[in-house]
């Protein structure tokens, strides 16, 4: 899942914030102010921003204003505020697209971001999924790794697609069997293991670790620094 690079304020956000963004699959960069915003901006502009106005409201709202005035004005801004600051929102409707109360619940923040990026995610979904050098074109069913084509069977492709859609999330064998195979298969639940082994071989020795075995649970794609 990639909507593009998000700007996150403050420059060093809380661990909860970093974890939520990472586990939800967003790529992001911390920015300390308007200067950094311009200096670090990707060529096509920021895809969106998550701005903490809870601790330092003045700098936070200033950053929102800067985001709207960039050469590529940022259209998706989520602000974090404390419950006592709700009144601040009234006069600043033009500076944000959604807000979340701080301290936030990770599931709520994740849901709000997903909703805010709904249109971007939908168009991303329809075309390609990319993660760590792996690229799946959903229209042509072609998979490449570092631009090298991977020859996959249909079920290998489907399994990889399912795992890659949510990097870092752990899936049980039962879930994968029900969701990916979806029908009675001669192999039963061990079929998942067989296909994972084949996929690892096709990814090549140096990338085999991308599909991680989570002991006595199942599998996850993409190593996560939040695991363990």
């Amino acid at each position, binding site marked *: 899942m990639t909507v593009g690079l998000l700007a996150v304020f403050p420059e060093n956000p809380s661990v909860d914030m970093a974890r939520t963004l990472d586990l939800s699959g967003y790529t992001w960069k911390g920015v300390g102010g308007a200067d950094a915003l311009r200096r670090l901006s990707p060529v096509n502009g920021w895809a969106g921003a998550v701005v903490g106005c809870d601790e330092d409201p003045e700098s936070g709202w200033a950053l929102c204003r800067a985001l709207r005035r960039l050469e590529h004005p940022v259209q998706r801004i989520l602000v974090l505020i404390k419950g006592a600051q709700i009144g601040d929102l009234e006069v600043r409707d033009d500076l944000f697209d959604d807000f979340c109360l701080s301290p936030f619940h990770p599931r709520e923040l994740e849901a709000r971001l997903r909703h805010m990026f709904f249109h971007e995610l939908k168009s991303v979904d329809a075309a390609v999924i990319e993660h760590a050098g792996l690229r799946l074109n959903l229209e*042509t*069913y*072609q998979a490449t790794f570092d631009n090298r*084509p991977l*020859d996959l*069977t*249909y*079920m*290998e*492709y489907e399994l990889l697609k399912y795992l890659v859609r949510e990097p870092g999330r752990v899936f049980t*064998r*039962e879930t994968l069997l029900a969701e990916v195979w*979806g*029908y*009675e*298969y*001669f*192999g*039963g*639940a*061990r*079929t998942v293991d*067989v296909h994972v*082994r*084949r996929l690892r*071989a*096709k990814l090549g020795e140096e990338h085999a670790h991308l599909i991680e075995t989570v002991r006595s649970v199942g599998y996850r794609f993409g190593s996560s620094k939040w695991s363990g």
Partner: protein
Amino acid sequence: MLEQQRDYVLRTVEERGIRLVRLWFTDVLGNLKSFAISPAELENALSDGMSFDGSSIDGYGRVQESDVLALPDPNTFEVLPWVDSKSAEARVFCDIAQLDGNPFEGDPRQVLKRNLKAAQSRGFAFYVAPDIEYFYFAPGAAGTAPVPLDEGGFFDLTTTDITSSLRKETIRTLETMSIPVEYSFHEDSPSQHEIDLRHTDALTMADSVMTFRFVVKEIAAMRNVHATFMPKPMEGVQGSGMHLHLSLFKGDTNAFHSADDPYNLSPIAKSFIAGILRHAAEITAVTNQTVNSYKRLVPGFEAPVHVSWARNNRSGLIRVPVPKRGSEQATRIELRSPDPACNPYLAFSVILAAGLRGVDEGYELPLEADANLFEMGDAALTKLGVDQLPQSLNDALRVMESSPLVAEALGEHIFEWFLRNKRAEWRRYKTHVSQFEIDSYLRSL
């Protein structure tokens, strides 16, 4: 689901510039058969199948109707990695059906599917991992004695290099064709190699064994080397076997495993072993189907001769490997009689049928034969109640003939055709005057 699978195949053919799609299937004797179609015909083939005249395929002939349909199984579609990308080719395994769409009873793949469904209805998934042995020989004219590649001194170093690089290349190709390799090594005999495949469900494995034999021969032929799965190509050295590691799974659980048993064997595993032992003689003609197979099943070469089981005795028919501690998924049994010249679809079918009969009827597991059977006299063996495996193709066919179990597992069509074909093979062999006879009798008699 099927619609998406077809779409996947069609798009891949388009995107990868595939010029030729090979439709693979297997005759009753286990020979890989293939015909090629152009991508333009593929869509039609996937939805309606391709009809062809089956009368020239071994075991496919019927009295009334000789045309059959090849229905590609889109899940087995793979690009062939050894063909260069300019003339890219792909292959897909086919199920063979009658023109009315019903499964064709002469198709070994359909036979295995039927047997696997029977297991599935009891909640079992049948898993197989084969250890496949074979020889590399220098190419020679038909009818000449085989010449091993890594024996003969003169080119020792170079030729050893050739065979190990051949094996490496083969393994790389297998892995890109979704056939994971567990181990590989040089076997005891000159020029003999072994490649062990990682377990999969039996249908996938039967397809994999067919692909394996083709890949090994193809890669060798590209270097002007002849690879053979003949069970006993050279007198006086070990032959080539295809030991099968077998297990039954119920969902995620290994049905052969029991933590309480000293051997870690569940009651299901024990009666499955008992089933194979009791019906061993009946299924041998299928697992060892050539005249030559029985020259491997002799004492002194690590091939089984007796119908027995043991934990660590490699002379028995079934070995129960001791799994690594705590490795419940690895509990399995190893059947040591089959050879790599068998038809894997039919061999897996009769083995499963024999084992399941044991489970269904709760056969009692005989005592373990832990002494080395090769060193025991016939009288001692009889006292132990240990029978021998059939000593020749003729013996094996006689036992198979009166086996309702094998008839049911294979279906009447294949059962009868197989017996007829193999009896003819035995007759041809029986009337052949061998070098052994010339050498032994011509001068002395």
